[in-house]
C-alpha cells in the first residue's frame, strides 16, 4: 500500500469531518486534529529512510505511455521529503499549542477545519508532480490562510487579511497566467515532461516571459523584498499558532519551494543566465532591508515578521549561488528558520496570552514570571542570530562560506553585516520583553499553560539538536538527497519518468 | 396528493428532457422525481383538486389561442404606431402612462397569469401588483378611470382566466 496520497487525503478528510463531529461532540476537534497531525508527522518520519530514491504515484492508475505522462502524478523525492518533514512537524506543534491558545477565540472547530485545509494544501504543493495541481493546492493553502489571518474578526485583522488577499490574489493570477503561457509553449504541465521539452527547445522569448511571471508571482508569495508589503501586516494579525505556520512554513512552501522546484528542476538554473543574478540580488536586498526594518519595530510580532523577510532572503540568496554548498546551506537554513521562527511566534503568543500586549516598550522583565517562554525564546533568538554552538550559526556559516567559495566575497560580507543586524534586533527583543525591569501592569503574569509550554520546549530542543543534521550519517539521510535533487536540475525528468 | 402531483410532473419533465426510455434512465428519473417531490412537494401546488376538473383544462385550451390572437393583434398595433411615428415625428400616435386597473380574479395564481399575459402583450407592461389592483404601463393609455381601463386592458383575458383558476 502506497501512502503518498494520504498526505493530502487525510487532512482534507479531517477538515470536513471536524465540523460534523464537533457538532455532536463538543471539544472532539482538539483530539482529532492532533491525532491527524501526529499521524502525518510519523508518516513523514517513516519516509526519511527512503528519501534518496524518487517515488512516483499516478493517481487513478493512469500510468504514462511511452514516457509521456497523462494522469496526475504525485512525486516524492529528497526535496519533497525534507519539506514534508518541516511542514508536518511544525503543524503538529502548532496544533498542540492551539488546543489551549485558541480556547479564547470562539468556534475552535472552524479554526481547525481551516488549519487542516491549509495543511492539506501545503502537503499537496510539496508532492504535486505537475504545475496545475501545484497551483490548485497553492490556492487552497492561500485561501485557508486568508481566512485564518482574519480569524479574530477585528478591524485590524480584516484589513491585514484584505491586503494579503489583494497581493496574494495578484500573485496567483500572475502564476496562472504563467501556467497558461507555459502550456502554450510546451503542451504539457507535468514537471518532468516539461523539463524535457524545454531542454529540447532551449531559451525562447516565451520562456523568459514565463520566468518573469513565475518570479514575480512566487516572489510575492514568499515576500521577497520588493514584493513584501503584505507580510508585516498579515503575519502579526493572525493567531499565534497561525503566525508560526505562516512564517515558519507557508511562505517557504508557497514561495521558496515552488521557485526552487520550477527554476532548478523544470527550467534549469543554467538555462537562463540572468536567473542566478536575479535570485542573488533579490535575496541580498530582502536580507539587508528586512533586517534593518526589523530593527525599527516596536511591535514584537511585527519585528518577527520583518525578520522572516530577512531570513527568507538568506535562503533565496543561498539557492541563487547555485553551488552544492550553497544549496546545502539554503536547505539547512530553511529548516532552522522554520523551527526557530515558529518557536518565536509561539513564544510571542504565550506573551500575548498572559499579558494581552505585544508592544515591546510596555513589556519587560518577563523572564522571572515566564521562565519557560523566556528560556526557549532566548535559545531561539541566539540560534537565529547565529551564535556558535547552535544550528543557526552553522547554516549562516555555510551560506557565507559558499558565497565566498562561489566567487562573491562581497555578498558574503553583506550577509555577515545582515547577520550582525539580526543579532542586534534579537538582542533588542530579548532585552525589552524578557529582561530588564518588570512593568507594574504585568505583576500578575504567570507561566503559560502546560499544553502551550510542551510544544515550545520540544521546538527548543529540536532547534538545539538541528546542528546535528550536519553530522555525516544524519546529513546523508535528510539533507543530501534534497541537495542532490536540486543539484541534479533537469535530471529530475529522468528520475520521475525513467529512461 | 400535492407530493404525488409534483412527482408526476417532475418525472414528465425528466422524460421530456432526456427523451430516452432506457431502463437505467427510468430508474434515475424516478429517484430524481422522488427527491423533488420530497423537497418541493409542499409548495409546488396549493389546490391539487382543481387539476382534476376537466372544465378548467378545456378553458385552458381555449385560453392559449385567445392569448396568441390578442398578442398578434397587439403586435400589429404597436408596429403601426412605430411606423406612423417615423413619418410623423411631431405628432406621434402614442400616449404613454401608467394606469391602475382592478381585477376580479381571486386566486393568486390567476392574478399572476393575468399580470404575465398583460406583460407579454406588446404595448402593455405590468409594473406592480397589490392584492386586486394592478399598475400597468401602456404605450397608449386607453382611459384613466379604473373601470374603463380595467375593461379595456384586462377584461379580454380575465373572463377566461377566472374560469380556469377560480
Amino acid at each position: 500500500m502506497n501512502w503518498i496520497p494520504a498526505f493530502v487525503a487525510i487532512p482534507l478528510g479531517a477538515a470536513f469531518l471536524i465540523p460534523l463531529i464537533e457538532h455532536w461532540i463538543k471539544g472532539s476537534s482538539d483530539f482529532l486534529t492532533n491525532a491527524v497531525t501526529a499521524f502525518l508527522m510519523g508518516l513523514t518520519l517513516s519516509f526519511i529512510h527512503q528519501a534518496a530514491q524518487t517515488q512516483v504515484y499516478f493517481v487513478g492508475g493512469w500510468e504514462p505511455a511511452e514516457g509521456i505522462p497523462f494522469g496526475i502524478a504525485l512525486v516524492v523525492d529528497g526535496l519533497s521529503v525534507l519539506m514534508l518533514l518541516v511542514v508536518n512537524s511544525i503543524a503538529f506543534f502548532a496544533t498542540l499549542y492551539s488546543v489551549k491558545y485558541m480556547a479564547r477565540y470562539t468556534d475552535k472547530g472552524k479554526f481547525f477545519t481551516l488549519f487542516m485545509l491549509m495543511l492539506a494544501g501545503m502537503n499537496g504543493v510539496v508532492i504535486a508532480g505537475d504545475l496545475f495541481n501545484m497551483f490548485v493546492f497553492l490556492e487552497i493553502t492561500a485561501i485557508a490562510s486568508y481566512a485564518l489571518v482574519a480569524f479574530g474578526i477585528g478591524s485590524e485583522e480584516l484589513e491585514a487579511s484584505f491586503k494579503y488577499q489583494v497581493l496574494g490574489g495578484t500573485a496567483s493570477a500572475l502564476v496562472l497566467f504563467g501556467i497558461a503561457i507555459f502550456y502554450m509553449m510546451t503542451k504539457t504541465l507535468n514537471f518532468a515532461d516539461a523539463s524535457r521539452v524545454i531542454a529540447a527547445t532551449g531559451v525562447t522569448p516565451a520562456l523568459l516571459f514565463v520566468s518573469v511571471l513565475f518570479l514575480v508571482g512566487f516572489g510575492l508569495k514568499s515576500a521577497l523584498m520588493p514584493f513584501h508589503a503584505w507580510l508585516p501586516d498579515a503575519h502579526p494579525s493572525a493567531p499565534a499558532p497561525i503566525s508560526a505556520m505562516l512564517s515558519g512554513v507557508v511562505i517557504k512552501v508557497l514561495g521558496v519551494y515552488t521557485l526552487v522546484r520550477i527554476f532548478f528542476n523544470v527550467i534549469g538554473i543554467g538555462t537562463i543566465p540572468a536567473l542566478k543574478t536575479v535570485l542573488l540580488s533579490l535575496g541580498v536586498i530582502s536580507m539587508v532591508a528586512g533586517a534593518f526594518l526589523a530593527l525599527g519595530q516596536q511591535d514584537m510580532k511585527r519585528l518577527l515578521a520583518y525578520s522572516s523577510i530577512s531570513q527568507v532572503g538568506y535562503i533565496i540568496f543561498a539557492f541563487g549561488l547555485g553551488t552544492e554548498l550553497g544549496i546545502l546551506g539554503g536547505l539547512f537554513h530553511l529548516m532552522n528558520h522554520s523551527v526557530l521562527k515558529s518557536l518565536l511566534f509561539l513564544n510571542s503568543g504565550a506573551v500575548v496570552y498572559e499579558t494581552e500586549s505585544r508592544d515591546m516598550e510596555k513589556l519587560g522583565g518577563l523572564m522571572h514570571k515566564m521562565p519557560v517562554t523566556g528560556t526557549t525564546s532566548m535559545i531561539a533568538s541566539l540560534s537565529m542570530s547565529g551564535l556558535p554552538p547552535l544550528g543557526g550559526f552553522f547554516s549562516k556559516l555555510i551560506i557565507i562560506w559558499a558565497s565566498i567559495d562561489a566567487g562573491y566575497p562581497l555578498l558574503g560580507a553583506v550577509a555577515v553585516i545582515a547577520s550582525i543586524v539580526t543579532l542586534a534586533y534579537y538582542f533588542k527583543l530579548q532585552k525589552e520583553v524578557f529582561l530588564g525591569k518588570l512593568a507594574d501592569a504585568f505583576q500578575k503574569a504567570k507561566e503559560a499553560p502546560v499544553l502551550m509550554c510542551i510544544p515550545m520546549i520540544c521546538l527548543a530542543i529540536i532547534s538545539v539538536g538541528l546542528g546535528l543534521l550536519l553530522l555525516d550519517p544524519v546529513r546523508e539521510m535528510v539533507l543530501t538527497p534534497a541537495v542532490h535533487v536540486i543539484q541534479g536540475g533537469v535530471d529530475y525528468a529522468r528520475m520521475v519518468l525513467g529512461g | 396528493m400535492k407530493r404525488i402531483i409534483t412527482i408526476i410532473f417532475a418525472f414528465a419533465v425528466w422524460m421530456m428532457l432526456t427523451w430516452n426510455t432506457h431502463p437505467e434512465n427510468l430508474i434515475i428519473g424516478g429517484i430524481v422525481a422522488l427527491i423533488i417531490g420530497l423537497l418541493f412537494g409542499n409548495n409546488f401546488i396549493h389546490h391539487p383538486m382543481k387539476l382534476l376538473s376537466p372544465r378548467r383544462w378545456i378553458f385552458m385550451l381555449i385560453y392559449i389561442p385567445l392569448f396568441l390572437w390578442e398578442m398578434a393583434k397587439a403586435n400589429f398595433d404597436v408596429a403601426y404606431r412605430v411606423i406612423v411615428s417615423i413619418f410623423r415625428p411631431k405628432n406621434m400616435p402614442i400616449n404613454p402612462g401608467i394606469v391602475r386597473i382592478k381585477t376580479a380574479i381571486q386566486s393568486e395564481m390567476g392574478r399572476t397569469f393575468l399580470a404575465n399575459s398583460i406583460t407579454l402583450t406588446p404595448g402593455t407592461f405590468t409594473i406592480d401588483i397589490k392584492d386586486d389592483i394592478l399598475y400597468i404601463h401602456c404605450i397608449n393609455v386607453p382611459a384613466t378611470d379604473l373601470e374603463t381601463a380595467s375593461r379595456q386592458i384586462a377584461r379580454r383575458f380575465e373572463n377566461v382566466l377566472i374560469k380556469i383558476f377560480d
Partner: protein
Amino acid sequence: MTVFILSVILFLIGLYGVLVKRNLIKIALGFMIMEYAINLLFVLIGYRAGGTAPIFTQDVSGQIFVDPLPQALVLTAIVIGLGTTALLVSFAVRIYQKYESFDIRKIRELRG
C-alpha cells in the same frame, strides 16, 4: 494572435483596477476581470480551428479535436476564482460594517 493580445489587454485592465482603484468592491471586480482574462486565454490556447468536442467513440475518428485539457483546467480555475472572490467580497462587507465605507482612504491600515 489578435485574440491573445486582446486577452492580455483585458488582464492588464484588471490589474489596473486592482492597483489603482480605491473602492474595495472595485478591487474585487478587478480581480474577477483578471481571472476571466486568464481563463479566456487558456481556452483560446486549447482551441483548434474547425475542431470538435473531444469525445472518442467508434464512429468518430480522424477529426480535429479541440484540446480538452485547458477546458478542464479552466473549470478548476473558475472554481478557485469563485472561492477567492467570495472570500474577498465577504471581507469587504465585514470591513464595511466596521467603517461604514468602502473607500480605501478612510480605512486606516489599507492606506498607502
